[in-house]
């Protein structure tokens, strides 16, 4: 609960500071601050249709990928590979959706989503196995798998999945019957948005209330204690968490293909997997709070397009703002003096190799400081 309150505080801080930062940047680069900001607002929240078709739709892949990152970080896994997992998920979903007959309808769409989940999970499993069996740091392997996934997608849309006319590097369109249904007629608000919000709430419940969720959190917070004091099979928990994380990102890619783009493109993701890190952190790795933080970033992106269109402000400026939001959050943690999400982002790493304990523990010096407390 405390985390949710803190996350709400962060969201406000992030919102205010990003608007302030943006205003400053606009002013510095000589754009009309008021006009640009109002274009941003109109583009993000100006009307129901803008909110539904723009902000919410933009926020959806960020939320899926953000949940993937939050889940992995909570388990102590530094999955920087949401981008690649999202792309493989999108590719698999596209492959299934354009192959299946239109007559399958919603069931076909569901199959495509399943394919995305599977592919994303498998892509993460590569990094998970590399970490567990071969000791390759997941930070490095997932970065590489991202590039490989991007190139594989590039190959697919030029090769086996290229459109029948073979003109552009993109796949054929998914048949209308196999697309995710629209939630509100006249908007682009698709069923995937609800699925994302549902996933966030379900993940929050899973972590808080279930025994496997508890095992995952304890493994992330201190793998050795989880194994020794809790009898938890930490390698198994990490492996499953890593795969689940990839599956969530893969689902995000599949939803994007079946709900928004209806086709596979090379540049399907403008870096959702990286923005996801900011989404997850802003939410203090809390899945339900991630709904809010994905909305903030979705609004920024949607607003940025409007700003570019209406006030000719380069959309890249929003990237600057996003980066500054992250840096402000990190700095506020430092200024506050207390580790907030920095602490929950545990860097436990894989379970330690078995071996004799170090001759001294940090506990001794910590105790040196704290024993007078005990007496007081």
């Amino acid at each position, binding site marked *: 609960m405390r985390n949710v309150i803190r996350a709400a505080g962060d969201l406000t801080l992030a919102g205010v500071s990003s608007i302030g930062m943006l205003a400053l940047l606009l002013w510095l680069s000589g754009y009309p601050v008021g006009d640009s900001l109002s274009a941003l607002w109109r583009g993000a929240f100006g009307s129901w249709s803008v909110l539904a078709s723009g902000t919410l739709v933009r926020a959806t892949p960020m939320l899926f990928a953000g949940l993937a990152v939050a889940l992995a970080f909570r388990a102590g896994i530094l999955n920087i590979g949401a981008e690649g997992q999202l792309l493989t998920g999108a590719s698999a979903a596209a492959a299934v959706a354009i192959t299946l007959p239109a007559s399958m309808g919603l069931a076909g769409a569901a199959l495509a989503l399943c394919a995305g989940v599977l592919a994303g999970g498998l892509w993460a499993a590569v990094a998970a196995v590399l970490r567990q069996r071969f000791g390759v740091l997941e930070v490095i392997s997932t970065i590489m798998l991202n590039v490989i996934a991007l190139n594989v997608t590039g190959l697919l849309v030029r*090769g086996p999945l290229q459109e029948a006319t073979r003109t552009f590097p993109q796949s054929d369109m998914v048949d209308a019957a196999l697309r995710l249904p629209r939630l509100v007629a006249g908007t682009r608000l698709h069923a995937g948005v609800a699925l994302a919000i549902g996933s966030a709430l379900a993940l929050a419940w899973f972590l808080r209330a279930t025994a496997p969720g508890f095992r995952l959190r304890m493994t992330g917070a201190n793998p050795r204690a989880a194994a020794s004091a809790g009898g938890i099979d930490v390698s198994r928990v990490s492996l499953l968490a890593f795969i689940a994380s990839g599956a969530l990102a893969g689902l995000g890619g599949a939803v994007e293909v079946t709900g928004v783009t209806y086709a596979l493109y090379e540049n399907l993701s403008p870096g959702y997997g990286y923005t996801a890190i900011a989404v997850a952190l802003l939410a203090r790795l809390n899945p339900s709070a991630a709904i809010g933080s994905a909305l903030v970033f979705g609004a920024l992106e949607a607003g940025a397009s409007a700003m570019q269109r209406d006030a000719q402000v380069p959309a890249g400026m929003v990237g600057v703002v996003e980066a500054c939001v992250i840096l402000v959050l990190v700095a506020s943690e430092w200024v506050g003096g207390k580790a907030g999400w920095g602490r929950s982002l545990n860097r436990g790493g894989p379970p330690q190799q078995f071996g004799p304990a170090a001759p001294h523990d940090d506990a001794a010096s910590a105790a040196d400081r704290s024993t007078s407390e005990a007496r007081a």
Partner: protein
Amino acid sequence: MTAAPLADFLEASIRSATPLLFAALGETVAERSGVINVGLEGAIIVGCLAGLATSTTLGPEAGLLAAGLAGVAIAAIFAIVAIGMAADQIITGTAITMLGLGLTGTLYRVLYGDSGAALSAPTLEPLGVPALEQIPVLGRALFRQPLPTYLALALVPAVWWWLYRTQSGLSLRATGENPAAALASGIAPRRIQTVAVLFGGLCGGLAGGTLVLAQVGTFAEGMSAGRGFVAIAIVALGRWNPVGAMMAALLFGMASALQFLFQALSLDVPYQIFLALPYLLTLVALALTRGRYAAPAALGSRNGAAR
């Protein structure tokens, strides 16, 4: 196969490898001090723009210098947050990359207009080494390259000497292995890490400058195209050693040069295969050597420097 395409291929390999080598050398130093800077991509792209902007008025040599300084500037932000405030390095680095990409995209439009007009910068021409450049096949690749290539190659032994043969190199490596021990030995770990990160930024900026001033001749949004991440792979494949980094950079350079070779030979092979191949190779190499053990022990650790 005739000699010409092969010579072209080798020349292109070294050319493609040069920015990667710069970036990887800088990142090797940073990682050896225990700091993983995922913001390298940001340093490269600001180097690109600074190189272009300066080169149009002051010439390409000044452009290269400006590129390096721009890299230092953005690395300084990383250093303040990730070292000064002991924030998570991966998160900070990700933010720095976003910052660099966003900032250059914005600035480019602000400076040169909305059209993003194809602005071309004066470039650094290849400098031939008399006689040696005439060597068949290899001559052009090794001895007829623009200034940055020679600079990058000269940097390899220099960095090696620094890391393994000097007191400050010893301190730097010790900081990357055990910052608390370094501190207790009278070393200032944060200062060392800051220097290492700034050096990494310098090299990243030079990589960007090389890209614009010795290769492309113009700027495009996002033209760094993931080279910062490639460099991180190269550092790992090179086992955190400058000489290893050189070999690995060359390998990645060859992979991207293969597409030119195949074009020259009119072979219809999708180039993505060759772009992805070195990453696969790196993963396999890391897996086979159990990469973890070659990495500095304190790599990426928060509050690594204790205080």
